[in-house]
C-alpha cells in the first residue's frame, strides 16, 4: 500500500493559503479533512511522502493545479437547473437573440463556463430548438454556437459522449423532452446527434486567460464562483465582462448574486430570475 503521512495543522494552513491565493478556493478552518481525504490520492500519485512535499510540488508544477481544483470541487449538474433561469431565457433572452439574428448578426455565441457533463449546454440547445420551431424558423437554431468548458477531463469526456444513465437523465428532464431528444440504448440514454452537434466541449481552466475563447453574447457562470474567495470572484467576473459583447449577459446560480462585489454588471430581473448585463466603459 502506498502511504502518505497524515496532514498536519501546519501543512493544512500552507495548503489552504495556497488554494486561496492561487486557485481562489476558500476553505474553512475545520475543513482540513477535505484536503486530506480529497488530495491524498493525487499526492501519492506524484510521489509525495507528506503534504509538505505535495505543497512544494503544486508550486513547482502549476499544471497540477487544475487537478487540485477538480478534486476540491463538486461536479453537480441537472437538466434545466433553476426554473427562473430558463424562464428568463425563454421569455427575455432568446427573443432578444432571435431579433439580433434577424437583424443580420451572423451568430450568437454562448459559453457554459463550468459545463460539467454537459447538461447546461445541452438544455440550452434543446430550448433553442423548441423556441425556433415555435417561431417556425428552425434554421435560426443553427446560428447559435454553444461552448462548454470544464476543468475536469472526465467531465468533458462525458459531456462529449452525451450518454446518461436513468438516474442522471431524470434529474430535471421531462419525459416529453427525454422521448424527443434522446434514444434509449440498453438502460442508457443517448442524446440525438442533432443536439450534440450544437455544443462543443473544451478542457479549460478558469484561472487561464479567457481571450482565446473569443467574444460571447451570453455566459453561464452558475454555481462556479461559490467556491471562490471575494477577490477571485471579482477577477472572474471582470474577465467574463471582457469576453462579453456590448449588451452581453451573464447568468449566475439561483443562490448567487453580485451583491457587495465590484463587478461591471447591471442587475436585471424577470419574474423571480436575475440576470446581469455587462457595463462597457467608453
Amino acid at each position: 500500500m502506498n502511504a502518505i503521512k497524515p496532514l498536519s495543522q501546519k501543512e493544512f494552513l500552507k495548503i489552504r493559503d495556497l488554494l486561496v491565493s492561487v486557485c481562489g478556493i476558500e476553505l474553512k478552518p475545520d475543513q482540513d479533512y477535505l484536503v486530506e481525504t480529497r488530495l491524498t490520492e493525487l499526492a501519492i500519485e506524484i510521489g509525495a511522502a507528506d503534504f509538505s512535499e505535495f505543497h512544494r510540488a503544486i508550486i513547482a508544477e502549476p499544471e497540477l493545479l487544475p487537478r487540485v481544483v477538480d478534486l476540491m470541487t463538486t461536479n453537480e449538474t441537472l437538466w434545466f437547473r433553476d426554473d427562473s433561469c430558463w424562464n428568463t431565457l425563454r421569455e427575455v433572452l432568446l427573443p432578444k437573440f432571435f431579433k439580433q439574428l434577424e437583424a443580420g448578426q451572423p451568430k450568437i455565441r454562448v459559453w457554459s463556463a463550468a459545463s460539467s457533463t454537459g447538461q447546461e449546454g445541452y438544455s440550452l440547445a434543446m430550448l433553442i430548438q423548441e423556441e425556433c420551431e415555435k417561431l417556425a424558423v428552425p434554421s435560426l437554431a443553427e446560428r447559435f454556437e454553444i461552448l462548454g468548458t470544464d476543468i475536469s477531463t472526465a467531465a468533458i469526456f462525458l459531456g462529449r459522449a452525451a450518454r446518461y444513465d436513468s438516474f442522471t437523465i431524470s434529474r430535471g428532464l421531462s419525459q416529453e423532452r427525454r422521448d424527443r431528444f434522446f434514444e434509449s440504448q440498453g438502460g442508457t440514454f443517448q442524446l440525438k446527434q442533432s443536439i450534440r452537434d450544437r455544443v462543443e466541449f473544451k478542457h479549460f481552466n478558469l484561472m487561464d486567460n479567457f481571450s482565446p475563447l473569443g467574444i460571447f453574447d451570453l455566459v453561464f457562470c452558475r454555481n462556479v464562483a461559490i467556491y471562490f474567495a471575494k477577490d477571485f470572484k471579482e477577477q472572474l467576473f471582470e474577465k467574463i465582462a471582457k469576453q462579453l459583447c456590448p449588451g452581453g449577459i451573464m447568468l449566475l446560480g439561483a443562490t448567487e448574486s453580485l451583491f457587495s462585489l465590484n463587478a461591471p454588471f447591471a442587475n436585471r430581473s424577470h419574474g423571480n430570475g436575475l440576470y446581469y448585463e455587462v457595463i462597457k466603459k467608453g
Partner: protein
Amino acid sequence: MKTILIIDDSSSLRRIVHEALNILQFNILEAGNAEEAMAVLKVTSVDLLILDWHMPGMDGFDLFLSLRDNPQYTNIPVIMLTAEDRKDSMLKAIRAGIRHYLTKPFTHEDLLARVVQVLKLDLS
C-alpha cells in the same frame, strides 16, 4: 475492458452505481456482502472495488483491511461509497489506503470522475 466489483448490501444502490458506470462500458460485477465479494475475487481478476462501509456481517472497512493485508488483493484500488460521513471515518479510511471516499447521496459525475482517475483511463 476493466472490471469493477460493486459491494453494497442494497440491491437498489448497486443497480444505481451499475447504471452510472455503464456509461463508460466496464465489465461490472456485484456482491451484496463481504462473503459474496470474496467469492467473486477468488475467481475473477478485478481492477477496482466500489465498497459500502455499513453492511451486515463483515463491514466494508474490515473487508478492505483484510484485502489490503492479503498480497493477492493488496493492489486492487478501492473507492468507498457510503452514507458514513463522519470526518473521523473518512480520515481513517483514507489513511488506511482507501483511494477515494464519496458519501451518499453522491453525484454520478463525481463517481465517474474518481473512477476515471483511479483507473487512469485515457479519455483523450
